[in-house]
């Protein structure tokens, strides 16, 4: 296929979710996985070296164009909306779900020492977490886990892309005053 790189680029431009290599293959009806991989790698490098306004991000198992973080202020200016922020309690709850999944509400509340019904609902509403199923315990409590959307929002390739708790602890020790 001629101009494979440009075709892939146009697909990435139009797609509303990160595109996986398999998805691109099925759209282009192309057997050659390697060729698509090469096109994606070249594109990534080109956007990087040419310092364009957006870059090709590897996220949630796929590829997606995203604007450079350093231009965020201007884009917010254009969009005229306040950045959506998660409250600190919501962020803590999300971190617990991310690191301890599959996790029970009672585990989260035990860790945080407060009721988490509200924050869980907020996170469900935002599509950042989901109900994975039920645990075989009295009352069959629901267990929670993170979603694909979570990976997309926090620009993670997959869950292993998160630093481990051990790594975080080491980082913390190198900057003892950095905690608030």
């Amino acid at each position, binding site marked *: 296929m001629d101009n494979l790189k440009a075709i892939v680029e146009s697909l990435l*431009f139009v797609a*509303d979710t990160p595109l996986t290599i398999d998805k691109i293959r099925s759209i282009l009806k192309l057997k050659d996985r390697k060729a698509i991989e090469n096109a994606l790698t070249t594109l990534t490098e080109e956007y990087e070296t040419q310092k364009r306004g957006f870059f090709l*991000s590897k996220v949630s198992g796929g590829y*997606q*164009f*995203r*604007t*450079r*973080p350093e231009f*965020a202020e201007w*884009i917010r200016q254009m*969009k005229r909306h306040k*950045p*959506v*922020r*998660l409250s*600190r*309690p919501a*962020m*803590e709850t*999300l*971190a*617990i779900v*991310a*690191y301890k999944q599959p996790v029970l509400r009672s585990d989260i509340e*035990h*860790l*945080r*020492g*407060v009721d988490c019904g509200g924050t869980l609902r907020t996170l*469900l*509403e935002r*599509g950042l977490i*989901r*109900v994975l199923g039920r645990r075989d315990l009295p*009352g*069959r409590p629901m267990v929670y886990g993170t*979603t694909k959307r979570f990976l*997309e*929002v*926090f*620009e*993670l390739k997959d869950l292993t892309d*998160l*630093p481990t*708790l051990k790594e*975080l*602890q080491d*980082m*913390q020790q190198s900057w003892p005053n950095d*905690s*608030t």
Partner: protein
Amino acid sequence: MEQAQNMGAYHVDLGHTFEGPMDLLVHLVKKNEIDIYDIPIALITRQYLEYLNFMKALNIDVAGDFLVMAATLAHIKSRMLLPGKQEEQEEAEDPRMEIVRPLAEYLQLKDAAQDLAGRPQLDRDVFVRAQSDGDASPREGEQDLMQVSLFELIDAFQKIIKQKSPKDFLNLTLDTISVKSRISQIADILEKRGSITFEELFDKEAGKSEIIVTFLAILEMVKSQVIRIMQHASSGIIRIFNG
């Protein structure tokens, strides 16, 4: 000196309400620059109680969780004061571990939350292309993928419950949902095979609750006339048919 420290606590806390006891403990640990593995329990307990009293003085309701932690701290403090025998002390764990472990774990996850918050966040730091709704609407394709989350379903259902009196849904417990789940499974079998014997529906390995759930499912299916039950005149075998 002591006085100054206490005053400090009040001033810092004024603009800040603590979400829970762990939150408050973390604040005290950080304010006093304490090693959490060697907590001066008397100092922390006193400051903790001072904060609670301060909240009460302001007529702010102090949640029960805070009082439970206060009791825990007081208990640890008293155990620290108890003069134990030499060998007992070697055996026994440091009473402070009761709060050190959860505190360490909480601090770790607070770090994780902070790290997460520091990542480039979609729609805050990075943006993707806006989707113009004018795009050709998707036709009924062969694959027909669906993009819905369980939350959207639940949310839709909650709106209905709010509009209607909840009595329409009073029996919505896990048991009744289990029965519905079983109904769905039986319907799957009947769709595939057309009929099934009564015995076949009861797995020999099934526990008591599973047997009850299956029986209730059959009753409900008969009631809503989704299935017919027939018994063979001579063999006595009971068979269930699609309705």
